[in-house]
């Protein structure tokens, strides 16, 4: 087990290094250049040249790459071209917001997806199953940003039940007691996490339905029914436990999808997370921010996958012993 863990961690480091390298090279080779204004306003080429020189962009690419790796090894992610501040500071502000959003969305996705999948499997091919199957297929097919805009329009503008974007109420938040602040944050989290979680839950439900249907056809389930156990106990007590195993793999796969989905949801809901930070940095060709964000996202995905593997090993003894 220890050797396996060491191998996995080494592979994880190699993957993150590969992500950094590919991002660095592609960014520098891609058309477009940093330091340009967002719109056409007169720009002094001398100002641009001095900025390029200041950030070392006038050096050959291999030299820039070597210097970047050296600085990363020292724990220095560099200075943002556009934000006039250390990249580490910008990421440190954005990361908690993204983790909050992705964490809440993950909870919604798995709890709702699991419940729907089990419900559908238990009532397979009946009206409820067919209706939910169509509904989840629809949700799964909807682009996340479109869903976000729709939700914002209905619940933010028309019904006015929830705020239109942001993390907290900009006027009242500071004046609230701690419980009020928590409530305020949850109130702002509801729509973005709901959007991201709902789209994910649709996919999870379809996956879980298939897994449950497979398990419900097994001999031991038939035996449990033959013993006269109530159907509720058969489904939740016997079938569900075994149908949860592939679910762990899905957990590992869900995290990257949540991160990519978060880029769009954070933009639509003005949520100041990593996705929005990275998207804006890409448009501005803010190389240090994009590379650091890619490194962090890559690290989180690798970590999520590692966690899923560990959970899988814990859940299935055959994997621990190498029998599987």
């Amino acid at each position, binding site marked *: 087990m220890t050797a396996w863990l060491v191998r996995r961690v080494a592979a994880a480091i190699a993957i993150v290094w590969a992500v950094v390298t590919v991002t660095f090279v592609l960014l520098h080779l891609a058309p477009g250049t940093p330091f340009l204004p967002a719109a056409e306003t007169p720009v002094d080429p001398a100002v641009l040249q001095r900025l390029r020189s200041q950030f070392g962009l006038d050096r050959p690419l291999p030299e820039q790459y070597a210097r970047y790796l050296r600085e990363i090894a020292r724990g220095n992610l560099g200075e943002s071209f556009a934000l006039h501040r250390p990249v580490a500071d910008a990421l440190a502000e954005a990361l908690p917001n993204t983790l909050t959003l992705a964490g809440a969305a993950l909870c919604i996705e798995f709890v709702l997806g699991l419940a729907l999948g089990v419900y559908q499997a238990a009532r397979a091919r009946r009206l409820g199953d067919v209706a939910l199957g169509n509904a989840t297929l629809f949700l799964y097919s909807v682009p996340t940003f479109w869903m976000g805009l729709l939700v914002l329009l209905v619940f933010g503008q028309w019904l006015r039940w929830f705020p239109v974007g942001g993390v907290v109420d900009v*006027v009242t938040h500071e004046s609230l007691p701690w*419980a009020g602040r928590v409530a305020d944050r949850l109130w702002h989290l509801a729509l973005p996490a709901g959007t991201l979680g709902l789209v994910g839950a649709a996919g999870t439900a379809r996956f879980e339905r298939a897994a449950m249907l497979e398990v419900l056809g097994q001999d031991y389930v038939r035996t449990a029914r033959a013993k006269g156990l109530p159907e509720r106990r058969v489904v939740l007590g016997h079938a569900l436990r075994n149908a949860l195993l592939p679910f762990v793999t899905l957990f590992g796969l869900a995290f990257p999808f949540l991160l990519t989905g978060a880029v769009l949801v954070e933009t*639509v809901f003005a949520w100041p997370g990593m996705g929005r930070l990275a998207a804006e940095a890409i448009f501005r060709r803010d190389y240090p921010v994009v590379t650091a964000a890619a490194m962090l996202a890559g690290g989180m995905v690798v970590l999520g996958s590692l966690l899923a593997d560990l959970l899988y090993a814990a859940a299935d003894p055959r994997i621990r012993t190498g029998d599987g």
Partner: protein
Amino acid sequence: MRAPHAVRTSPSATVRLAVLGVLLLVACARREGCTGDYCGTLVIATAGEPQSLLPPLLTAAVDQAVSDQLFLRLADIGRSTNTVGDEDFQPQLAERWEWADSVTLVFHLDPRARWQDGRAVTATDVAFSFDAYNDPAVNSPFRAGVRAISAVTARDSLTAVFRFRKRYPEMFFDAVFHLRVLPAHLLRPIPRDQWSSAAFGRKPVGDGPYRFVSWKAGEQLELAADSTFFLGRPHLRRVIWRFTPDLQVAVTQLVADQADAIEVLGPPDNVKRVRAVPQLTLYPYRGATYGYLGFNLAANGDSSRPHPLFGDRELRRALVMAVDRERLLQNVWGDAAKVPPGPEPQLWWIWDPETRVLPHDTAQASRLLTRLGWRPSDHDGVRERRGNRLAFRIMVPTTSAIRRQYARLLQEQYRAIGAEVELDEVEPSVFLQRASAGRFDALIAAWNADPTPASSIAQTWTREGVGRSNYLRYLNPAFDGLVERASSGKGGRAATQRAWRQAIELLNQDAPAVFLYASENVAAVHRRVADVTIRPDSWLALLRTWRIPAERLIDRDRVER
């Protein structure tokens, strides 16, 4: 074991109770205190965020809007936005000024002016600021704007003396507009080459009507009124910018009553959407942007050779005459913009609808093309000459819906006269890079100009701008001479305006571009805000005079921080 008469709530009722509880908690927790005439809170929705609040490093419109509240100029542009002479300028840090001679300007500072840490604003601050703006280590984009000033010195603590290299009509404008005065005692200890990342840029101390409170990246920036401001206490107590990455979300916040104001609503659809909202009032004002279809006069990617098509002046004239600019404008903007008489935004005081332009005349354009040897081919109707097709590409940025719409309509109009147009839709960063490098046939550009034509036209349309903002490589010594004459003109405002008109008419005859639109900005502000005055060059320049009468205060105005 459940009590016999226990009430069992349904799940939906439980959810409803929970939501109600949360809302009550939030509502009850608000301490509502402020009353009177100085309680207003203005929440501004904005698509964008400042990069720094250090005045020499301001770039975007939102940077300037925030900075206008924090840092004063010596004098400010008047409501006429006239930039010639000094008669329309309003005193700010300087209570008065006089000309010692034709190239020496003396400012007398208002002795009441204070930095928000309590120190007096002095002439040393003014001299220090000029030195900083001029220092290559600071790398200020405004450095070019003050290059005509040779020195700024402090005669005494309240007298600053500006010396110019030459005499010209916009000397006063150059002295006061670009230069926001900086606190020398706070910035001097910071090495100039580290100013761009200095903490001061994210937590500034100013001398304006508002003081800095907080800035949460990606979320909000808050200022609070300085009740001791020497030019008069601002009425609005708190001003908060809400940052969103997208204009549509900003507009939705406004419509949903979660913001009070927005600088520019943008496309006509947004204006229509907000017009239907009863709590909002629209404020149209002259825009600083003009858009044009520009022809690259040099070969695509090789500035040493003329463009095979657009190097021909007569061909360009035919392409200008083929465009029905009024029809395009109606399709894209409705009544939210005007067809400009040249490279001019509505903001400029030289705007003159009587300026001569090439007429829209497709018949004449077709005849001219035929005369030049461009004849329709038999198979697809596209004109050809000596085996070459009349075909070119128009580059537009993907982020501008307006320009993409224009590009498609232009494609159709050019098809009608036998010109084949393909579109290159590219990312904004790529657009600007290719434009600067001359790697395009034609492009649709939109210039956001400062209030004076002198620097903007010189940088965009004369030899001075080649390699910088003169993307089209338009070179005409006669035009350059007229611009120089207009910029350094004598004889007052009317004569200067005539000189500009003459220059622009020559440019129009050379047809390096089709001037498509000069937009009108429309701001929206909540109806409870009174005395809203918008100055076209800087929409929040007069914010300190806006107010919310006591009887119109709503919950968010009363919240104590």
